[in-house]
């Protein structure tokens, strides 16, 4: 019994394959292509979408197609959600419909959106891949999901495990020192074993 192979070494199956982690698979089935609602020109796709600016009902995009033209003139807004921002208007290169804006200078709350394409949802259609359907962009959500909570949870899990490992290490150290003691003083063996068992049971909680 004392030298039996621990049960966890008998099973080769690991629930998680570490080799898989290096492969980043994009779920293309959930992707969509953004088209101008008027002339169907491709404007962008969901691979370059970074989220949604709800107050201006716009999709935030890192990249757009060459069919999107940036008007040269800077404009200023003094009221509404984009108050005190300077921006340039984006238009569809084919039908010249206004598609949204690029913010150039902004108050603090908009600074993270500078130099990104803000495309108005109401002038866009979405072609959903795999479903093969065209829907209004206003019906599709491009919202980001907060990730901080997940990270904190994971951190707590890992810290709890670290504690467990440290506890096990302590137990092992104690056991090995006990073994040395046992060799020296035979009669006391039973008392010290029961002590280490008590420690182990408290550890498993």
């Amino acid at each position, binding site marked *: 019994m004392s030298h039996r192979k621990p049960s966890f070494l008998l099973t080769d199956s690991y629930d998680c394959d570490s080799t898989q982690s290096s492969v980043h698979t994009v779920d293309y089935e959930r992707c969509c292509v953004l088209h101008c609602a008027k002339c169907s020109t491709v404007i962008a796709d969901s691979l370059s979408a970074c989220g949604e600016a709800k107050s201006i009902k716009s999709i935030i995009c890192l990249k757009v197609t060459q069919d999107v033209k940036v008007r040269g003139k800077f404009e200023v807004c003094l009221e509404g959600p984009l108050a005190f921002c300077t921006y340039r208007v984006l238009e569809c290169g084919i039908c010249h419909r206004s598609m949204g804006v690029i913010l150039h200078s902004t108050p603090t709350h908009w600074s993270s959106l500078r130099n990104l394409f803000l495309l108005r949802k109401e002038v866009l259609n979405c072609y959903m891949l795999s479903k093969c359907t065209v829907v209004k962009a206003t019906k599709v959500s491009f919202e980001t999901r907060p990730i901080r909570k997940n990270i904190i949870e994971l951190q707590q899990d890992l810290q709890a495990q670290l504690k*467990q490992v440290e506890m096990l290490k302590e137990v092992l150290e104690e056991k090995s020192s006990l073994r040395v003691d046992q060799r020296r003083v035979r009669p006391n063996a039973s008392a010290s074993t029961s002590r280490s068992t008590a420690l*182990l049971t408290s550890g498993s909680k």
Partner: protein
Amino acid sequence: EEDGDGDAPAVFLCGKCRRPVGDSLSWAGSDEQLNQIMLKVHDNIVIGNEPYVSSTRKEPGLVVNLACRGCGSTLGIMYTSTPKELDFKRSYFCFGVENIEYVLGSADQQVAVVDSKDMPVTLELQEIVEQQMIKIKALAVTIGHRLMEIELDLQTKSES
């Protein structure tokens, strides 16, 4: 066709009005001799209701025309009845490759300088991070189980 840009799928557009007619995720095959690609069904296509005899092969089959729902221009054909050699085309939408395609991720207009530090996180990248987190969590659970087993093992050893 579909391998044009890595593994990214392509969306096929009507050559005239640029409406999307299908994408390579619903790929059903291709016929290189006739420069045709075959896709599964899609909403934006009107299927003709007058079958006629196709004369492109020695053994003819019955085909109907496929038209774009937006502009009505002919996009391709669909075999409704085929001889054995053409069974792979039956009921699929056969398009000519001359229709425009847009490969996902090929949009390349970007505002001048966005350095790597200020690079915004795309929804796609967020998804990848989330996937990785799920994997790490699963791994943590596995490690937890293993630790518990070690603990129990030590316990039984010390009891014996």
